[in-house]
């Protein structure tokens, strides 16, 4: 139950962040893929099955904000969530630099899968936002590794305080 609450909060935060970024500037949504971060974070914690299911949910939410066919982002995020959980079980990616590279590769892969399905289904070129979309793996990795570090720091702080008590 606690996990479902945490995941729901994560999803709500992602929707809020996505809408806020959109309100600030349309370009920021192309650079930072917030839903990817939610998927990767919980996949790292809960494993590949939870990652895949959450990937599907996040992808569908993202698709509901766009005009295109429902499920394109869902498939790419399902695979991303699965791989994130699978790799995180086997390799230690807690370190900031490793975390950055991990998110960078996953975001890049997600972008490629999404672009492949988009081109396949719509039979047209993807809109790169004058090249901004290519910054997405870098932007997402930077934001993700900083956010995850911050979350871990807050966790440790909370744990040390409860130990002191």
């Amino acid at each position: 139950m606690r996990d479902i609450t945490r995941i729901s909060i994560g999803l709500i935060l992602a929707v809020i962040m996505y809408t806020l970024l959109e309100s600030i500037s349309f370009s920021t949504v192309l650079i930072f893929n917030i839903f990817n971060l939610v998927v990767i974070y919980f996949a790292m914690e809960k494993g590949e099955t939870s990652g895949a299911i959450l990937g599907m949910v996040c992808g569908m939410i993202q698709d509901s904000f766009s005009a295109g066919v429902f499920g394109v982002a869902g498939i790419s995020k399902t695979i991303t969530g699965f791989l994130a959980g699978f790799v995180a079980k086997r390799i230690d990616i807690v370190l900031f630099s490793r975390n950055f590279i991990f998110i960078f590769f996953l975001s890049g892969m997600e972008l490629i899968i999404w672009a492949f399905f988009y081109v396949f289904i719509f039979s047209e070129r993807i809109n790169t936002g004058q090249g901004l979309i290519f910054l997405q793996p870098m932007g997402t990795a930077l934001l993700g590794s900083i956010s995850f570090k911050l979350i871990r720091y807050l966790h440790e702080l909370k744990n040390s305080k409860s130990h002191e008590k």
Partner: protein
Amino acid sequence: MFFWKKNKPCAILLILILSQLILISIQVPLGDESSFFKKILIGIFSPVKHGIVFIYNGIGKFWDNYFFVKDSSRENARLETEVLYLRQENLFLKNTIRKYIDEKAIIDKVRDFYTDFLVAGVIGIDLNNYYKTIIIDRGTLDGIKKNMVVLDRNGYLVGRILKPLSFKESRVQLITDNDIGFGVYTETGTPFGILTGDGEGRCLLKYILKTNNNVQIGQDVLTSGQDDVFPRNLQVGRIISVEEIESLFKIVRVRPFFQFKDLDRLVVLLRNMKEEY
């Protein structure tokens, strides 16, 4: 059973991917029509988005009103001067029109004018189609209908209503969409051509013959009103390049006047104002 236990994560992944592929294949024949499932999700997240945008705008206004006031007196002076000029212009235009129609007709026309447009805010872009469509915070409850004309705050053409999505949301097809097509002419009066988007933030003026030398860089492009969607004389954009290739037609690129960064406030014309424009 043993296979399922051993490969459970992979099997779940396959089921999820397959179910989404089925979902996609159901939707593709629907075209522009949203599926029932998508409508439900839009219904759920639409109020959330409206709320967040409302709070964000509220904070922005609060900041502008109480903290960011150092330029307000200068801005006020500038606006007062602008209003003065606009009043003079308004008076001049009214007097000019009076020569052709009586004053009561003018007053009636002007009064109607204010009820004929609706101010809308942008609450979403389409991440899949960055230069194709945007979503505005007005829907069927506000009287929005398909093909209504959308302008930016400066009166430049932005696009048309593709369809209302819900009571309070509608999708706008931008003039930079490569699926749009409408009649235009250049400021010199000729030639009439078809303008379409290039899907990358600019437009293309199509079917301009190689032999036609009237099209030049720097000319303004206006709607011709021949398509029964856009009224005549709306400002669209400016020609930025004219290329000749091994084809019957020239490649004429047009930069739209509207700016993506200015799309926070839009105007929807609630009726086809052909006579006014």
